[in-house]
């Protein structure tokens, strides 16, 4: 099989000007992967800087409530910067040091990957530019604030739908001019080879830990593992710990948005809404029209609001190894509310998609079986987004009051 392909998906559809850059990146990545000391350095860094290994929490109250399988939650929210995104970013940061580059660029949707990249750049002393769709800049102001405070330059992208895919295009446009001293820290298991494979490798730290933790706490493997899927990096991270265990069912949960029938969603693998295509440097299932023009997507969770999906997941889905489901915005809010009240845990809107599907299925499993939900990130730092999603009136009053105070002090 051709390099960088997973079944019929993947590849490296890159402009010729990036050929040598990718040759260099492939070389650095393959060398690091073959060098056991690199992974040791990586796990040491993650233990010291980012609270790894993250816990696997037994959700006793939720398990009792649903009365079926024992529910465990893999706590990627306890990573530094509040999500699994840092795993990938710190790994690529170590690679950047090896390659001797001085500047990093990244795309970001919700801002988590941007904040993680800005954090890594601050830690490693690199210059940093983050591309973010203008619409997301407006929606995710707190993350923009942190990126700037961490020393990054945030560039609002005004092209196309002004969201994640447009930020990726803008980052590539920067890279084709700046590749001599700049590395593009792609945030997910998408894009041209080696990114899907490389990002999956860094994220595999989640699954490696979870496999050991569930054996220790539950005495055996789980029946099912749930993860939300935008690009697919947290899902690939945890799934890799169980891919070789045929008894463990893997479930990826996509953004059902306002319902698949409304066209306002980001479900690539559920139903037959997406079709094969090539864009942003790789081949996968895209939400596109008959001509191949990408469609508008929607999700309550900006991190899942994307037209493509990891080529590795497209392959695992096609082969039947991963089952895909979709959760609607409304279901997501209910699952988030229940998790907060029942366990005192606040998942991100993205992660809450995985909770929705686990809650649907847990009651049908036996009490001696276990399921793991990958909680890819925490929700409390997205207070503006979540408060908005809850349409919380006391929060609105607070914002109105604060705005009035700022306005009067401006005069």
């Amino acid at each position: 099989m051709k390099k960088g392909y997973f079944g019929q998906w993947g590849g490296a559809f890159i402009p010729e000007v990036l050929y040598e850059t990718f040759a260099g990146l492939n070389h650095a990545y393959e060398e690091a992967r073959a060098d056991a000391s690199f992974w040791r350095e990586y796990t040491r860094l993650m233990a010291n800087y980012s609270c790894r290994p993250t816990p696997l929490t037994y959700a006793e109250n939720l398990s009792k409530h649903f009365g079926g399988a024992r529910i465990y939650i893999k706590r990627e929210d306890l990573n530094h910067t509040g999500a699994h995104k840092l795993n990938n970013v710190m790994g690529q940061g170590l690679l950047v040091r090896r390659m001797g580059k001085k500047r990093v660029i990244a795309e970001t949707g919700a801002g988590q990957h941007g904040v993680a990249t800005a954090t890594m750049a601050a830690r490693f002393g690199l210059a940093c530019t983050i591309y973010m769709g203008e619409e997301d800049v407006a929606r995710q102001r707190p993350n923009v604030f942190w990126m700037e405070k961490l020393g990054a330059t945030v560039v609002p992208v005004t092209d196309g739908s002004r969201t994640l895919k447009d930020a990726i295009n803008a980052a590539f446009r920067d890279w084709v001019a700046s590749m001599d001293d700049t590395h593009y820290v792609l945030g997910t298991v998408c894009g041209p080879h080696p990114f899907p494979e490389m990002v999956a490798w860094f994220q595999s730290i989640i699954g490696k830990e979870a496999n050991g933790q569930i054996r220790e706490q539950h005495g055996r493997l789980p029946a099912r593992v749930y993860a939300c899927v935008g690009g697919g990096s947290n899902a690939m991270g945890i799934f890799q710990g169980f891919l070789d265990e045929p008894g463990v069912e893997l479930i990826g949960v996509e953004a059902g948005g306002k319902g698949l029938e409304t066209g306002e969603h980001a479900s690539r693998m559920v139903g037959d809404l997406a079709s094969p295509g090539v864009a942003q440097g790789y081949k996968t299932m895209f939400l596109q029209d008959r001509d191949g023009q990408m469609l508008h997507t929607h999700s309550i969770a900006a991190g899942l609001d994307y037209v493509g999906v990891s080529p590795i997941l497209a392959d695992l889905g096609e082969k039947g190894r991963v089952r895909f489901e979709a959760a609607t915005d409304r279901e997501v809010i209910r699952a988030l509310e229940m998790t907060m009240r029942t366990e005192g845990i606040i998942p991100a809107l993205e992660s809450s998609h995985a909770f929705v599907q686990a809650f649907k299925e847990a009651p049908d499993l036996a009490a001696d079986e276990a399921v793991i939900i990958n909680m890819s990130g925490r929700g409390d730092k997205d207070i503006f987004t979540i408060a908005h999603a809850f349409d919380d009136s006391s929060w609105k009053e607070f914002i109105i009051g604060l705005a009035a105070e700022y306005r009067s002090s401006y005069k």
Partner: protein
Amino acid sequence: MKLAADIKKRRQDKPVLLMTHLVLGYPSLDVNREVIRQMAENGVDCIELQIPFSEPMADGPVILQANQKALAAGLRVADCFAFAAGVIAEFPRINFLFMTYYNIVFRYGEKAFIRRAAEIGIRGFIVPDLPPEEGETYLQLSQQSGLAPIMFFTPTSSDERMRYVAGRGGGFVYCVARRGVTGQHTVMDANLENYLARCRRATDLPLALGFGISSRQDVAMLEGRADMAVIGTATIRLVDDRGPEAVGPFIAGLLGA
């Protein structure tokens, strides 16, 4: 006559040829037709017809927005084929090429796209996000149909890479003058001169140089160094600012007429 042979033949009479570019449907197909007429009447040799794509990763802001506006106005790939068939019949002296991104070809079906393009008289394809490693079927089908798959040289290409890439292409080689996306100006200096000399040594195919050429001086400097100057973003800006009728005098000026 195949594209490479036609270019070489034209070069016997002219020190440097001209290739221009337009985004189909921007600002409209009617304006496109008028622009092509002005180009044809003033000595253009090749025209790239860009079929718009929603994710034009290798293009700068001007062409990017032209893509978006054409799509927003409802342009379909079928409209592009119909329009191309019309202008090819109307301007037989021009070599027309399709420029687009691979997804457009892929969704249409590689075989069907190439067959249809050959039927209407397209001479070649420029697909910037399809490196030869990923384009085996496309390359084979194009060559079989007598169409030229245009390959790229860039300042970052090694001599070995240039020879490999040129061996898979046809028509001419599109030499990118510098790093970056379309629409930024480039100056002729020792680096560029060395680069063009490297390009020349790597292939017998004609060389076209693009990205940021916009004046008579730019074109004149290519004489003896490349076979064809590529004018991209400049004419789109010109049509935006001064309308299609400004294109003819601009082209004539580039050729020193």
